[in-house]
């Protein structure tokens, strides 16, 4: 029997239940592709070991009178062969699920519990425990050295200064993707496997980082598919920024904010112009001052008494309507960055990848050693943006490119 505890939702998680529906489940999936087939019984033991290290993850979400909260669940986590679509709604108490299929270990997680980088710590630990069991190694202790207390700390609280400077950015209504939608509510996954060094080389030729380069290529691909008339509206790319890179945090809970990058189309713009624009935007938006101000603004919003005393179900209802009307974004792009694992494991791990549920289209990228994988989650029948992007990268001189998809 686990020790029973409860946790308030963190600042980012608070809004998520109201945004969750059949189309956008707010469940994301992280995948670790191994070089050999996964052994279920060993994975089950590894999961047990991992859950003991991350007790906060074995929680269920309950609703109080004013807010949702997390409470230790008595359900035992288990592993099973993958038999659902990636990012589908989780059944049962727990807010995460571990599945395997062939040589892949999948972690599906509800965003209330953690963000991509937090969940990645869990997956890395799980994979390390599993590999230790299978190959008789003992390095899983080196994967995450933070204390259990530091892992479950709500770092929005920890780092907010409630400073004077507030930012509530105004955004224009953005261009909406207009492709025919799929009949059912499950999204398709299209993974693109590339070589990180190749992309890095090309990005350096353009004198920018991989993230900026890929965002620029993405924007260009959207422009190519759009009707010129619609491009009077800006293209809004939602980019989550991992605050762990800015603040010295070791939490595995949510610690991110999303930033909207709105690009106004100009016919004469080349890729280099877009890159120049993005470089400026990124250094402005991702500066420490801006993120501290953002953190302070959101935290003081949470502190508004008027907002706090509204009953939970009304809050969800109102927030749901407000977020439903939000139209400042075209699509989302999460870059989970480079996955670091102890060197010994590189003989057994092939790659990491991730995919995030969305209403329209979302791109997630992850890099491990030389494997750069990006995964689109799409609710559209046609995949023009994906195709344009692949074609663009191929034309730019990318040799290695493989498409993996769950499309019928």
């Amino acid at each position: 029997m686990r020790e029973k505890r409860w946790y308030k939702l963190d600042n980012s998680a608070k809004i998520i239940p109201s945004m969750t529906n059949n189309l956008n489940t707010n469940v994301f999936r992280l995948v670790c592709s191994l070089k050999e087939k996964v052994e279920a019984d060993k994975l089950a033991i590894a999961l047990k070991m991992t859950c003991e290290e991350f007790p906060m993850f074995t929680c269920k979400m309950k609703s109080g009178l004013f807010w949702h909260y997390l409470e230790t669940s008595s359900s035992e986590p288990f592993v099973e062969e993958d038999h659902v679509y990636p990012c589908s709604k989780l059944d049962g108490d727990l807010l995460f699920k571990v599945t395997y299929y062939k040589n892949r270990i999948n972690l599906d997680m509800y965003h209330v519990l953690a963000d991509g980088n937090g969940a990645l710590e869990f997956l890395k630990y799980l994979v390390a425990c599993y590999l230790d069991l299978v190959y008789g190694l003992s390095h899983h202790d080196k994967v995450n050295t933070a204390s259990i207390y530091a892992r479950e700390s709500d770092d929005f609280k920890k780092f907010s200064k409630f400073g004077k400077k507030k930012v509530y950015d105004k955004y224009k209504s953005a261009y909406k993707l207009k492709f025919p939608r799929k009949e059912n509510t499950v999204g398709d996954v299209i993974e693109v496997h590339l070589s990180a060094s190749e992309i890095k080389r090309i990005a350096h030729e353009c004198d920018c980082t991989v993230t900026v380069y890929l965002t620029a290529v993405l924007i260009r691909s959207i422009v190519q598919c759009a009707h010129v008339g619609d491009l009077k509206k800006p293209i809004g790319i939602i980019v989550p920024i991992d605050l762990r890179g800015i603040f010295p945090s070791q939490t595995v809970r949510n610690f991110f904010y999303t930033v909207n990058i709105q690009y106004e189309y100009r016919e004469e713009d080349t890729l280099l112009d877009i890159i120049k624009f993005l470089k400026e935007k990124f250094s402005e938006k991702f500066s420490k001052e801006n993120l501290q101000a953002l953190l302070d603004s959101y935290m003081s919003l949470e502190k508004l008494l008027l907002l706090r005393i509204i009953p939970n179900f009304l809050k969800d209802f109102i927030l749901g309507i407000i977020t439903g009307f939000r139209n400042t974004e075209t699509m989302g792009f999460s870059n989970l960055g480079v996955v670091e694992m102890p060197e010994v494991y590189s003989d057994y791990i092939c790659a990491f990848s991730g995919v995030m549920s969305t209403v329209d289209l979302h791109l997630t990228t992850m890099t491990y050693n030389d494997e750069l994988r990006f995964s689109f989650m799409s609710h559209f029948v046609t995949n023009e943006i994906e195709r344009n992007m692949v074609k663009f990268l191929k034309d730019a001189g990318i040799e290695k490119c493989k498409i993996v998809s769950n499309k019928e």
Partner: protein
Amino acid sequence: MAKCNKCNVEVDTRGERCPLCAAKIEKTIDPTYPTIKTTSTWQFIKRIMIIFVLCTSIIVVFLNGFLTPNMKWSVFVIAALLSMYTVFLGIVKGRKRILSMMFYMSFAILAITFIWDRLIGYKGWSLNYVLPSVAIGYGVFLLILRFVSHFAIENYRGYIYLHILLEFLPLVMYVKNVVTFEPLALVSACFGTINLLVLLLFDFSHLKNDLGMRLHI
């Protein structure tokens, strides 16, 4: 490995078309993603139930209209069908968590009997007999779960608080003259007291935590 010549990429997919351009390609022999069964048996049974309830309702309304236009007996049949469907939904929804299911079910039973009570001319039997019986039955069930089986009752303390209120409800109603049958109301209040005492004796230390958890602003 399948290849799309149009896109000039290697492809691994479950279908016979390129995921990017939809051109015909060779089928992947051993695709990375599994094939997924879309509808569950529960969904299938649910659909059949809806069709059954709808068809029977329509037939009943027509028969009623043709045979005995003056008597509105079809209302009762439809109410019965809806009651049945509600109970069924309760079972499907709560099939994994027995106590929460039992709690919602007792509410459903109360609501349904109350409506029935009204439909056939209000005689008060739903509040006089059904309400205290449900409260007592659920109370006994809770006590059994707590002491006889090794059920992790602390997961369901919220239901116990609510349930104790339910057990005292008949007595309150009796005092307010809503309910006329005293004995059952008293027995129910008795069980309410027992459950309250047990709660205070065994779970008092959790009370503050529970309240903080549910009411944090």
